[in-house]
């Protein structure tokens, strides 16, 4: 079974901090995704990656960047955290025509 692991379930940071959210998958999937989930808005795509060192902007990339140095790991970076980035962040991986598999999410609070 596919395992997508997000390093933290809960995270509290302060405004202006640089924040790293880590995601690791164990199924050699080439595609990985970062979403944020807010009540009433569903999931919105922040960034995605289809290969190592490759990244593409999703629908709401502003204020975020990503890193994919190894195939199994996809990191989301908040360059200078702001309170409007308080949210649930979900990582997913996928291959071929298969569905996306999700991690358990990181609930991030920016104070």
């Amino acid at each position, binding site marked *: 079974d596919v395992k997508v692991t997000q390093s933290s379930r809960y995270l509290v940071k302060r405004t202006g901090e640089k924040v790293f959210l880590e995601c690791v998958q164990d199924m050699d999937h080439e595609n990985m995704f970062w979403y944020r989930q807010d009540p*009433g808005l569903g999931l919105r*795509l922040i960034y995605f990656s289809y290969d190592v060192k490759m990244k593409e902007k999703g629908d709401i990339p502003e204020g975020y960047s990503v890193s994919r140095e190894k195939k199994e790991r996809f990191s989301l970076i908040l360059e200078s955290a702001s309170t409007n980035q308080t949210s649930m962040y979900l990582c997913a991986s996928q291959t071929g025509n298969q569905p996306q598999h999700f*991690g358990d999410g990181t609930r991030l609070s920016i104070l």
Partner: protein
Amino acid sequence: AQSVTQPDIHITVSEGASLELRCNYSYGATPYLFWYVQSPGQGLQLLLKYFSGDTLVQGIKGFEAEFKRSQSSFNLRKPSVHWSDAAEYFCAVRFYSGGYQKVTFGTGTKLQVIP
């Protein structure tokens, strides 16, 4: 543009009653469609998917969904709801944009089950 609409934000059903969650999509080509479930504090778990073929698809936990091209719908059903089905449900459509696969999610339907 591709979109997914789940018109019901919140639904309450009695345990043992039948359930139907609505999903309408907008996509010009043949859609790949999904239903996911999210329990509180968890990630999304795939319930079922439709790629092609039989328009009635069976999923896990006793759920099924029917693809109706003429209505651009992919409604989720369960004949008898259990208390453990209380969760949020998301419909999603996969499409190609700029040569890449992307997925658009609906805004979700929160299901409450009462005894």
